[in-house]
């Protein structure tokens, strides 16, 4: 790290160590006398990670993606919420310092970023009993699935693969109506990209409008959602969860479109010999992701989740062979300085669908409060079509009332022409979190 970088880190630490004394002052009692409800939570997180990007045709010599091999993050994450009469304000400003080292086959360099931003905020107004109107920047997630959220047209990533990274909020206008305790009707309009990446791979933001109906029954809960992306496809999604016993939950989730915007490799007369085409956009068949799962809590308190996912838009064996043939060709072109390959390799990284192939198995083991201190999450995702997989272990250790130490390890396995070995082979991350 350069001297300026070290100075910046030192300054940030000084700021953070001085700040909580003032910020953590609890004014809630005095404000409550005036009918104002205040909640605040201030967290400081620092983490360091090392990654081993895959060195294959997808990212030759790491020259294309320029993924970091080392990264340090220091973040101040205060959360505030304020309520007064029929108004409620939520605010999550962030102060961030990040440093990373990128090592490619041609050069190695450092880069850093100092930023202050609002990751989420929302103003909610209740004009009438059971009616709520809100606008703001939020992360909207729902559904019982652990691997990903196929019913959600706004966020496919549910933030569970790396719980130490915050998802960026997107801008929403929402109207909520609660006819009774069991039902909720939501009209949601995603009006701007905000800080969120929807993972769709569609480069320009398109407004998405949705109507969502949620219910909670005696032993079950679920939701149904219809969304329409401006200039794009409409999606129907839903989730359902059933409480079968004090220990066993069963659930299902899915999201479907007529036709798909997913990209498929096609041979062409282009110089590279290949193009990506949204070949099934006009198809009248239903495409989407279906997920079924179950969670069981053992007497010890540990919970095991098992999920099966089917991605009907995913590549068949032949399409996968074409895809890897295409990328090998493009990777070789890229190494020969044919920069026409850059665009296609970038498209190969994001095929407008959450997973590459069709069949996946996911298992998770969650054990919380081990010795009243340690939470452990072990996650494994296996591509049943190409037998590649990814194992993620997350440990969160509360060393005292204010401090958590955490660690994450990720290992991908599979052949060179497999999904999980395309970009990232290994990663580990360690850090701490202070809460005030």
């Amino acid at each position, binding site marked *: 790290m350069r001297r300026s970088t070290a100075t910046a880190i030192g300054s940030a630490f000084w700021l953070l160590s001085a700040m909580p004394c003032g910020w953590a002052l609890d004014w809630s009692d005095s404000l409550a006398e005036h009918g104002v409800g205040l909640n605040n939570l201030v967290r400081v997180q620092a983490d360091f990670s090392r990654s081993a990007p895959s060195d294959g045709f997808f990212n030759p010599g790491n020259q294309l993606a320029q993924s970091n091999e080392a990264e340090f993050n220091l973040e101040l994450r205060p959360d505030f919420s304020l309520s007064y009469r029929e108004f409620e304000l939520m605010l999550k400003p962030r102060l961030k310092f990040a440093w990373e080292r990128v090592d490619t086959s041609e050069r190695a360099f450092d880069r850093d970023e100092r930023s202050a931003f609002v990751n989420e905020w929302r103003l909610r107004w209740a004009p009438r009993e059971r009616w709520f109107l809100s606008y703001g920047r939020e992360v909207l997630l729902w559904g019982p699935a652990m691997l990903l959220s196929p019913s959600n047209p706004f966020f496919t990533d549910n933030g569970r693969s790396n719980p130490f990274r915050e998802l960026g909020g997107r801008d929403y206008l929402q109207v909520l109506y609660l006819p009774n305790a069991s039902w909720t009707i939501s009209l949601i309009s995603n009006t701007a990209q905000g800080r969120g990446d929807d993972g769709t791979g569609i480069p320009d933001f398109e407004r998405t409008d949705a109507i969502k109906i949620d219910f909670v029954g005696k032993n079950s809960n679920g939701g149904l959602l219809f969304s329409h992306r401006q200039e794009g496809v409409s999606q129907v999604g839903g989730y359902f969860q059933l409480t079968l016993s004090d220990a066993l939950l069963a659930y299902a989730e899915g999201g479907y479109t007529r036709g798909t915007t997913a990209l498929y490799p096609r041979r062409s007369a282009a110089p590279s010999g290949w193009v990506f085409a949204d070949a099934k956009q006009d198809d009248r068949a239903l495409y989407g992701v279906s997920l079924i799962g179950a969670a069981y809590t053992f007497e010890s308190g540990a919970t095991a989740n098992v999920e099966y996912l089917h991605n009907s838009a995913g590549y068949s064996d032949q399409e996968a062979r074409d895809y890897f043939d295409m990328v090998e060709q493009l990777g070789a072109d890229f190494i020969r300085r044919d920069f026409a390959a850059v665009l296609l390799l970038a498209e190969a990284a994001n095929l407008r669908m959450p997973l590459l192939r069709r069949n996946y198995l996911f298992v998770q083991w969650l054990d919380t*409060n081990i010795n*009243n201190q340690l939470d452990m999450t072990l996650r494994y995702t296996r591509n049943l079509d190409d037998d590649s997989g990814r194992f993620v272990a997350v440990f969160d250790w509360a060393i005292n009332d204010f401090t958590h130490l955490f660690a994450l390890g990720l290992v991908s396995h599979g052949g060179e022409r497999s999904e999980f070995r395309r970009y990232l082979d290994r990663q580990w991350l360690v850090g701490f979190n202070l809460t005030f």
Partner: protein
Amino acid sequence: MRFVVALLLAVVAGLSLPVVGVATISPAEILTQSDAARGGGLPGIHWNIKLSALDGGEQLDQELTVRAKGNDSLVEFSAPPKVKGQKLLTVERNMWFIKPGLRKPTPISARQRLIGQASNGDVAATNYAGDYQAALLGEEAIDGEDCYRLELTAKEAQVTYDRIVYWVSKSRRVGVQAEFYTVSGKLFKRARFEYDNRIDYQGKSIPFVSKMTIMDEIDRSQKTTLEYSDIQVSALPDQVFNLQFLMR
């Protein structure tokens, strides 16, 4: 001889009378009345809990706030800072855990342990009358107080405990002791209840739980205490128990 038999039958019948005769109220009604003193079946109530656990020789403390309405409850953790902002929502038999920084609520089961010997189901409002079939086993004094001894059998598999033996004070109509059994019939924890709080309910001042002490019957060195304070009865709107309103 006939006289002796008749006399014996009369004595036996006489001895049995207190059980049958006193129980003019049904076991289900006894249970409903005792639930109110633990937050169950009320139209809206709020209380704070100080949870202390002695686990493996280590003392653990947490503070939480509970809001309850009917079969629904919302538990919010306020201390220590490492758990501040965590929430546990129960709507009927559905449960979710919400952690700051992890935006997506996690569906959980009632069996998952909180800290010490307290499970998620212990800190939520008690609704034994809705969840269990009650049968009167007899009467027994607990610390010199006459109690109904009820056997509670789960009506459905979704509840926290499969079987409970529950002692309810005859005079105060509050649960004073409970034994919790596993599906295999093994006693695994025992709880004692104290009622030094009072609330106004249906025009009457009724006792409300002030302390629950849970003792592990397998490892007797482990003990968990829940102390209840700041009880407030007030109507709570539906959005308090709506998952979409909990993400701050």
